């Protein structure tokens, strides 16, 4: 992709290679490209902003330390997603429970009324976030990656290290559950 200056945009893989050679600015560029995406996934998985920021921080630290082992078989985005999924799963296991589904945390994630959204829209977002948090971790992951972030089945399978068929079956069951939970919005 060429920019207005005529220079080709540097690929993620090139940034990783530069970072491996000690160019810390290259890794910061990677952070700028993917931090918002990672944060969005993390918030949807963790259910609260504070845990999401921690998870993203740990993901980036893990990526920085482990980038020598990145072989380029998947995209950098998928690789980072895989690390993030691992981080959130570890936090879930250590917490021994589902992420915070209190009304306060979900409302924090859903955001309040703003100039561009009404109270009704906010309530809808709260219901949607609560429904997603009620899913099992496996189902929540595939829904967040597919429905909220548009990853392909192959990318999701790569990130979760599961067969493509498993992604499809998990999405099927998760969507059935969401349809039941949100049926009033789907009539």
């Amino acid at each position: 992709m060429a920019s207005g200056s005529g220079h080709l945009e540097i690929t993620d893989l090139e940034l990783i290679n530069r970072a491996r050679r000690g160019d810390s600015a290259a890794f910061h560029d990677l952070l700028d490209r993917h931090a918002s995406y990672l944060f969005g996934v993390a918030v949807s998985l963790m259910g609260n902003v504070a845990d999401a920021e921690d998870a993203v921080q740990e993901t980036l630290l893990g990526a920085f330390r482990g980038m020598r082992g990145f072989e380029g078989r998947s995209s950098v985005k998928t690789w980072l997603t895989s690390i993030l999924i691992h981080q959130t799963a570890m936090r879930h296991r250590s917490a021994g429970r589902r992420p915070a589904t209190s009304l306060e945390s979900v409302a924090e994630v859903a955001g309040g009324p703003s100039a561009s959204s009404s109270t009704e829209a906010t309530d809808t977002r709260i219901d949607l976030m609560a429904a997603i948090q009620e899913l099992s971790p496996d189902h929540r992951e595939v829904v967040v990656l597919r429905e909220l972030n548009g990853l392909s089945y192959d990318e999701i399978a790569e990130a979760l290290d599961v067969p493509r068929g498993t992604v499809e079956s998990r999405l099927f069951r998760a969507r059935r559950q969401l349809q039941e939970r949100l049926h009033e919005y789907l009539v």
Partner: protein
Amino acid sequence: MNECRQSERLGAYHDGELSGAARAEMERHLGQCPACAAELERLGRLSELLVAAAAPKLSLAAKQRLHNGIDTIPMADLRRVAEICGAIAASILLVCTIWLVVKTRATTDAIPVWETVAVAQQEPATAPEEQLAQWMVQDLSGKSAHD
């Protein structure tokens, strides 16, 4: 709830993830199965609804914290290396200490040289039994002369 067995692949069809042949088969099925057609429509509405569940944006302050966290990695790694070296050094010291204690105990079991020498010096130059034997010989020699 839709009980049709083909419904399990509706999601993949909805997501554009079915191959050409599978997609064509699903399209034929949708023309014949009202339940699947209705569920496909619900999947579309669900996807539109979930768009509203998009997570809040990463704030500039939070992004800066992430950048700062990356910058502290070298120092954190140095501290970790120092901790590991310290643990290794402590382990080596402990092993050496144990080895020295074991070696010292082993050498105390042997008789010291000074004690061996002292015992040797206490032994008489001529055993009493030998001297007695000499006297007996001298005495017997004297009696035999009279016989």
